[in-house]
């Protein structure tokens, strides 16, 4: 697995990397040097999201030790916004004539999938899910079904970028906090809205554990706009033996009650939240899954990222990841130690 995020997750040691924070309501990705991953002649044409997505996918394949990648399945809420914005701006500027082909081609949601397939010479199933806060989760569900049908492995991931224009549009409809908020204080300053983020996260999934496996997915459920009773029922299904609850809490007072419901259902079980690390976006759940797998694999928690951390169990065998996107798309994933 691999992740490019606002934190130093791609290179180096996550346990010594300092906590990256912001007071501008936007967490931007720490991007690596792409040259070792992408040929210069291809790199010149790619915008940020394409570089981030392709590089994370390639690093994830290297990390897995898998030689031949099977199906490539991704999720994205918005795809390459930079290309989409450029293409739309040029339609207006040049009165629908003389339009550059590159931003048009790359503005399609599945362009990263295509680039990955070209780079690894993958000719298997290739699909991108665009379902807002369920984009990554549908990619994950599809991958699990492909594995159940006999696929040797899947490359499964999520990608999202934030642009100045998109940040502004979303701020107009109340996605972000109206005043600058220190990301370190995100959970203490409850008010409408959250802080924005972005990221690319990839996993190589297999039907049975391999020597390189980091964690096992043993439970998965998606709920769309659940009532309090339905949510309680869904969370209760995964109550058994949980050592740590990882939530997508994001400081938004309008939807905090969902996470408070999880608090009451898991009394005494340690809980951590990850949106002060990743920011909020359609596929932030993929970062949560990366973090859960990282904790299970290393049996450590990057302490500098969680100054609120008090005590943890000696061993962490089972983690429940609970995330929702602005109260609509709710996801529960149980990950266990291999």
């Amino acid at each position, binding site marked *: 697995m691999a992740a490019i995020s606002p934190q130093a997750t791609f290179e180096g040691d996550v346990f010594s990397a300092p906590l990256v924070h912001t007071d501008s309501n936007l967490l931007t990705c720490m991007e690596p040097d792409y040259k070792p991953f992408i040929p*210069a002649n291809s790199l010149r044409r790619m915008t940020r999201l394409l570089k981030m997505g392709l590089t994370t996918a390639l690093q994830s394949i290297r990390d897995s030790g898998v030689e031949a990648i099977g199906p490539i399945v991704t999720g994205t809420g918005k795809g390459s916004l930079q290309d989409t914005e450029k293409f739309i701006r040029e339609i207006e500027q040049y009165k629908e004539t*003389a339009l*550059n*082909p*590159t931003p048009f*081609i790359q503005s399609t949601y599945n362009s990263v999938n295509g680039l990955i397939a070209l780079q690894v010479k993958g000719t298997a199933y290739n699909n991108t899910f665009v379902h807002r806060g369920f984009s990554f989760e549908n990619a994950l569900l599809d991958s699990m079904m492909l594995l159940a049908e006999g696929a040797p492995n899947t490359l499964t991931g999520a990608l999202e970028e934030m642009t100045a224009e998109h940040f502004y549009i979303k701020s107009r409809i109340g996605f972000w906090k109206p005043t600058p908020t220190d990301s370190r204080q995100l959970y203490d300053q409850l008010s409408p809205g959250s802080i924005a983020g972005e990221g690319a996260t990839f996993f190589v999934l297999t039907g049975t554990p391999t020597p390189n496996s980091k964690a096992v997915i043993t439970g998965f459920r998606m709920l769309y706009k659940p009532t309090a009773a339905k949510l309680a029922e869904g969370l209760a299904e995964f109550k058994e033996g949980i050592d740590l609850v990882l939530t997508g809490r994001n400081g938004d007072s309008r939807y905090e009650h969902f996470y408070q419901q999880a608090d009451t259902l898991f009394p005494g079980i340690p809980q951590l939240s990850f949106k002060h690390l990743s920011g909020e976006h359609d596929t932030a759940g993929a970062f949560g899954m990366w973090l859960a797998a990282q904790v299970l694999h290393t049996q450590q928690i990057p302490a500098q990222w969680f100054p609120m951390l008090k005590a943890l169990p000696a061993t962490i065998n089972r983690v429940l990841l609970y995330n929702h996107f602005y109260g609509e798309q709710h996801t529960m994933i149980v990950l266990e130690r291999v």
Partner: protein
Amino acid sequence: MEDLKSKLKAQIIEALNLQDTKPEDIDDNAPLFGEGLGLDSIDSLELMVLLERQYHIKVEDPREGRKILQSVQSMADFIQSKQPA
């Protein structure tokens, strides 16, 4: 003509984001595709757009396009042939 070729080289570098290339690195007669700059089919479309936006010349026939985009020299010759005397 020399001014036109220099301008064209700078425009090609900008349009195709040829980061490590300088105008003086491009030989007037070197092929733009395959060898030389190593451009591909998407680049050829970008160069057609460049001609349309910067010189208001629309290349309608793709076979004609292949000849025009052979080198900086052939592009400059084509642009000059389309300019009013």
